[in-house]
């Protein structure tokens, strides 16, 4: 599988009439972070665990730092610390979403799912649509520059520490970023328009493409606004009814559990109240648009209303609508970045707070791909004794499997497997922007091996693309 971030493999099982009976996305890597970070000192964790993932390291860096805030008794960060972290986070969302949309997804949208794989990639985009490709590169670059000035380094930085941050934003850094923000907002509007228009123009085909009704989960601000950095947990069903709301993240184990299945290293999270069969849910941009009552920046809020109008204000359950939702968040992040750059708190000198030491900490954040949970216990020697991580992509495990099954059932007839079909399976997975590296706490890339297995367990066709 390519153009997703991680290690995956799909198997499709057929019955005697060559009909699909089962389609599975296997996650094939295992790393064991939960165990091997035990005994490490707690202050090291935000820097170590981000190495789960080089695509969204800031998410892990911040979720771990938030958990360690609890450990060091920092119940309320200084305004400078919280705003620096938020700036880092919006920079991260911005670069990650731009990367996914321009570098990984745009080839499918611009060239079509069946286009020649030799051109259906970011290099093909650069050759055919150079202006758009440059925009994508420059948007990602801008997000990375924000991470650099807040975390010290574009990938695997050190900005967030237990109880706060280790630097503020200098005037020079601020002015450097302010110089380009208007252009970035303009490009964000353009990207949003591409995703929106594509979705609407192809809606008849896209609405059933790997789609299904599902519950949705995210964190939410106290007043119901979209908040990517902090809030309580809200879960809704496919019609928008609340399953739970404003749950303190520190109580997450009362609400969420993860089922283990023997055919994948990625676990299957579910809402406890609904049980392992029915309790699965989606996270990420689509879920966040569905759970939020409003967005607190004007242009993104207008875009949200436009988006929700398509489904008459009810949750949107169309898998391919993830792309549109993601670009609304890009615009929201750009608006937030502008707001923060103009906030003088970022030049404050008060960076770290401490309080009464605690033995256990939980940090939750909305990563680009969805709700991310970090949970640690630390002993009196400052060493970690327990770590539990539920990463965004793990929550989308069941949904991705369902999407694969739906697409496989619809497009595989007989045993002839074409490249275009295989790419359709990947298109459905790619909508979730899965970070399979995060999910297995491993990352890398595997060929998409689609094995067609008949009712006798014999491999009748196998395609490695």
């Amino acid at each position, binding site marked *: 599988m*390519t153009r997703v971030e991680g290690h995956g493999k799909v198997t499709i099982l057929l019955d005697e009439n060559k009909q699909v009976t089962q389609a599975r996305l296997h996650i*094939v890597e295992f790393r064991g972070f939960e165990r*091997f970070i035990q005994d490490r000192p707690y202050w090291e964790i935000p820097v170590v665990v981000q190495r789960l993932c080089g695509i969204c390291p800031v998410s892990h860096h911040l979720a771990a730092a938030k958990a360690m805030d609890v450990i060091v008794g920092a119940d309320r960060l200084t305004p400078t610390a919280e705003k620096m972290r938020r700036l880092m986070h919006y920079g991260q969302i911005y670069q990650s979403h731009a990367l996914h949309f321009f570098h990984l997804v745009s080839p499918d949208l611009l060239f079509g799912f069946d286009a020649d794989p030799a051109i259906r990639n970011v290099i093909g985009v650069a050759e055919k649509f150079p202006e758009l490709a440059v925009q994508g590169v*420059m948007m990602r670059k801008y997000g990375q520059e924000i991470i650099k000035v807040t975390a010290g380094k574009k990938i*695997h930085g050190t900005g967030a520490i237990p109880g706060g941050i280790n630097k503020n934003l200098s005037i020079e850094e601020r002015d450097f970023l302010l110089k380009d923000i208007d252009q970035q907002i303009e490009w964000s509007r353009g990207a949003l328009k591409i995703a929106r228009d594509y979705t609407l123009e192809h809606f008849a085909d896209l609405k059933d493409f790997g789609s299904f009704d599902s519950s949705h989960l995210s964190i939410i601000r106290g007043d119901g606004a979209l908040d990517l950095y902090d809030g309580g947990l809200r879960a809704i069903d496919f019609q928008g009814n609340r399953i739970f709301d404003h749950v303190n993240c520190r109580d997450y184990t009362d609400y969420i559990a*993860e089922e283990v299945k023997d055919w994948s290293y990625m676990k299957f999270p579910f809402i406890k109240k609904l049980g392992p069969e029915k309790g699965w849910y989606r996270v990420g941009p689509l879920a966040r648009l569905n759970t939020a009552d409003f967005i607190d920046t004007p242009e993104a809020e207008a875009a949200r209303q436009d988006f929700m109008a398509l489904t008459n204000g009810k949750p949107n359950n169309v898998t391919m609508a993830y792309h549109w939702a993601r670009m609304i968040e890009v615009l929201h992040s750009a608006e937030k970045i502008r707001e923060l750059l103009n906030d003088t708190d970022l030049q404050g000198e008060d960076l770290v707070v401490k309080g009464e030491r605690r033995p256990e900490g939980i940090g939750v954040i909305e990563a680009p791909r969805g709700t991310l949970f970090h949970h640690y216990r630390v002993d009196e020697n400052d060493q970690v004794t*327990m770590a539990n991580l539920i990463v965004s992509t793990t929550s989308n495990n069941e949904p991705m499997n369902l999407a694969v099954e739906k697409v496989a059932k619809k497009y595989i007839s007989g045993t002839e497997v074409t490249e275009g079909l295989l790419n359709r399976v990947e298109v459905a997975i790619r909508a979730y922007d899965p970070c399979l590296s995060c999910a297995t706490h491993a990352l890398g890339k595997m060929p998409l091996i689609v094995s067609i297995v008949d009712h006798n367990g014999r491999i009748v066709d196998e395609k490695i693309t």
Partner: protein
Amino acid sequence: MDMVKPRLATASLAGCFGCHMSLLDIDERILQLIELVEFDKSPIDDIKQFTSRCAVGLIEGGCCNEENVHNLQYFRENCDILVSVGECAIMGGIPALRNNIPLKECLEEAYLNGPTVYNPDGKIPGDEELPLILNRVYPCHEVVKMDYHLPGCPPPADLIWRALTALLENKPMDLPYEVIKYD
């Protein structure tokens, strides 16, 4: 007459993809890179099997399972020059923290002991579709011959750019002290 461009392939084994992200951090120079090379097998495109022999293969990550080993061997067979990019490829990196711990303990912690685990049958993933996990994480040069090592977690974009363009243009590498970072 058009020159035949050298081919470039990349792989992420047991890494975090950060080294690939650092390669993308060359930003606008990616357009120059496209002029310079033809991309072959790489997670950033849709080429999943080598289409022809490559001048350079960039390897991120070490080997934590048998599939990583096969993939690395496949790259060695198909690339003239193979480069270990980043700490995981060079010495196993963070994933190698598990080398001092029995694998069983790592699996049990993730699938039996965690506070959110629901596993009434006490099963640990072991389906035949899942590749065999190795007893420890191996750096690339313990599996196949590696020609160059670029340090860093990840190596800075400028380091990757300078090393890569030198290899592709068959020039000596000019790597000043400031572009080599080990964190």
